[in-house]
């Protein structure tokens, strides 16, 4: 049963990494700044982590023959922790900017409505002066 659950966890993580990479690449295409670059790098590191763990899980001899256990765990820790931290910092900044932009849109809509009303008022005042 544990094999099935571990495989399921790996599959879910792989889908999550693919989604995260797609979303961060879309965000990078829209806004090219340090936050989106952090998000993209974090997603790529997590994808690499998932690929390595999946490959090691599928071929059990990987850890025993080719890479020593200490180096593997070090690499996996750096990839997973670094990926999560980079993704978290990038997401934090991106979401803060997203929320601020949404609030600014509301303010701008109010301002545009007020300016439109002022323009209408100005038009109504100007038209009688043209035709006395």
């Amino acid at each position, binding site marked *: *049963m*544990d094999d099935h*659950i*571990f495989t*399921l*966890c790996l599959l*879910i*993580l792989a*889908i*999550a*990494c693919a*989604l*995260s990479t*797609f*979303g*961060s690449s*879309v*965000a990078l295409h*829209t*806004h090219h700044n340090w936050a989106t670059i952090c998000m993209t790098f974090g997603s790529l590191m997590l994808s690499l982590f998932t690929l390595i763990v999946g490959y090691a899980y599928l071929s059990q001899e990987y850890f025993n023959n080719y890479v020593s256990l200490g180096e593997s765990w070090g690499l996996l820790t750096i990839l997973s*922790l670094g990926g*999560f*931290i980079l993704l*978290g*910092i990038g*997401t*934090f900044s*991106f*979401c*803060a900017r*997203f*929320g*601020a*932009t*949404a*609030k*600014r*849109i509301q303010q*701008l*809509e109010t*301002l*545009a409505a007020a*300016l*439109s009303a*002022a*323009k209408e008022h*100005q*038009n109504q005042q*100007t*038209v009688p*002066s*043209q035709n006395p």
Partner: protein
Amino acid sequence: MSYLPLLLLFIPLGIGLLFGISGLLAHRGFAFWGTWTMLTSSATFIISAIGLFALSAYLVGNPGYSELIAYITLLLLALSTLGYTVGLNAVCLRSRKLFSQATILEKITQDLATQTSPNQPISPPTQR
């Protein structure tokens, strides 16, 4: 003393809090299903991290712990990560529309402000 339980608590808890605050910031500006997904997923992530900590603390004291609960906790962590990325993906896709809308609105507002200023009247000059 083993530091593994503390590491297992603080690292996922910190990451979950960072994700939760990010979702909250996005939700305060523009609330839709993506931000709701981000918030619920980060809450699940934090709860799973606390559960994992409790399990690992129990594991140190008692080797004969229930493996099933540990696997369910791991599954919850993976599922909450998936939910968070789905919400983040929705926010990233929505941000394209939102940022372009903000740019257009800024230009419209600037034009309106220029037209309604007293120095530059919008109506043509009166013929004398």
